[in-house]
């Protein structure tokens, strides 16, 4: 058990990921305000993107551009560009999701004059 805690504490970035993920999920589930739900969803998405970036960190490595064209390529000296490219795509997807959901929230607010989920569900009937 002690070993496990020690091993976990050596990776504070993973702890940060778990905290953000669970926190976001909690907000999305428990809050009744639609915008707060959106914030929760956004936190969950961001935490996963953060996780992706954080496990692909490589110490003592640089951007994947060859420093010299004559030397032999040392793969150890370069970071893997793929996770970063994936995360850029992930951020674009996240922005699109946020845009569509904010548009829906504004439409709901115009229609029902409230952002509270219980209030809106009461008016549906």
């Amino acid at each position: 058990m002690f070993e496990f805690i020690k091993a976990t504490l050596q990776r504070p970035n993973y702890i940060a990921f778990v905290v953000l993920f669970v926190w976001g999920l909690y907000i999305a589930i428990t809050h009744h305000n639609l915008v707060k739900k959106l914030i929760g969803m956004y936190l969950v998405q961001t935490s996963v993107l953060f996780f992706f970036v954080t496990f692909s960190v490589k110490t003592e490595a640089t951007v994947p551009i060859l420093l010299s064209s004559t030397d032999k390529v040392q793969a150890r000296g370069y970071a893997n560009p793929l996770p970063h490219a994936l995360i850029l795509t992930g951020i674009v997807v996240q922005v699109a999701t946020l845009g569509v959901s904010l548009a829906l929230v504004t439409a709901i607010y115009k229609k029902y004059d409230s952002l509270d989920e219980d209030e809106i569900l009461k008016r549906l009937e």
Partner: protein
Amino acid sequence: MTRHLPALLFCIPMLTAISMPMVSLKRREWCRPMALAAVWAMSVTAVVNLVVVLRSGEIRYAFGGWAAPVGIEWVADGLASVVMVAISLIASICLIYSGRVAPHPAGSRVVLYYTLILLLLAGLTGTVFAGDLFNVFVFLEVVALSAAALIGMAGGKALVFAFRYLILASIGATFYLLGVSYFYAATGTLNMADLAQRVPGLLDSKAVIGGMVFMFVGLGIKMALMPLHGWLPDAYSSAPDSVSPLLSALVTKASLLAWARILYWGVGVGADLEITQILRLVWGMGALAAVIGAFLALTQRDVKRIFAYGGLSHIGLILIGVGQGNQTGLAAAMFYLVNDAVMQATLFVVAGAAIHQYGIQTFDELGRLRGRAPWLIGALIIVSMSMIGIPPTGGFFGKWYIILSSLRAGNYLAVAAVMISTLLTLAYLIRLWVRVFVGDHVSVNTERVEMPFALRVCVGTLTVGIIALGLGSDRIVRVLLQATTGLGL
């Protein structure tokens, strides 16, 4: 030339969708012809693609000329091509239906409406062909966003349900992405073919097992698997009647297909017995969904909601086939998936026509159809036969092969689940038919309502499709069996 067909299939709806707002800025009446031309072109291309794939083997398309593990790869094998033909044909029927039978949004929103439908189709094409895990994520998000916007177009309470769908679908996609990141951390690759070679050595890794569970939960939300289905009935029953056939036929199936692909082509469950635990989870959840979904359909009073819950039980049936871990099961599940897409489209086309031509909203008013709607009743009879599983229809052969594969796997609980779900389906359909044929005449006016020509075309083609799937089941299943050889099953 022929090797570019998968990319062409994606480009047709995508480029039309992008150019539509510009072209139709001044002339809104061009939207519908443009969209129709795009889906018809897609259907022709999909058929040509299927013929090419059957003749000369699968097409592996490397985007930008970057070969597989490094670049993005699309795989058009027999399975993807068959599903693509089904998607484009169903989409063209649904487009004929929308706007002619059920009204679509008026004014400037027409442009948005057709653009969104084409974007949805582009997303579905991408999901079907994608050969790596991250592409599946991106295209599933394209599908979810355009589907949510289409649901929200109905206005009123549909907005609330569209919002709920969007939040749940995004969280589902995030769970899926988390699973993908576990896989990437453990194997260093996202390409499914590459993954299949690296995973077998890593089966005791917690990252791989955790990643699979996260992916299943995430895709489970998107495919509306039973305990995670909360968004579906409200969203589909409040969606505009003109798009609900398209949504119910295709959206959840895309995630299901992606899951089957990841399980068998990516992780390669067939190759290793250690991982069959996950298959037990898959068919177990499927069996629960099949039985409980059909039971919940029995308790509904709104026509569209009955069909929505019926769709949930069919998702379960497909998962039972996927979870058997043998070739027959996988081929049967994929055959039933195509079948179910056609059946759901038919059900919602009939429901929408009943609402708009005959003013039937609830279940008690179904008696109004009696003697006045021969086309609708004929279609309902054929589709009911298919849902229960009576021979000449596709539903019978789908269920037959699923049961056959469960027996081959010695899995009698799964067989029982299929049987019970069939009986419950029979029960809710009988309840429906009693309203149509036996109940009191609700309406006093018995004049015949004129059936638009477009509706006859849609209903006719869909019912012929159901029967054709039954008659041609042998050939289709053989193609699917061929597509699933070489997976080590």
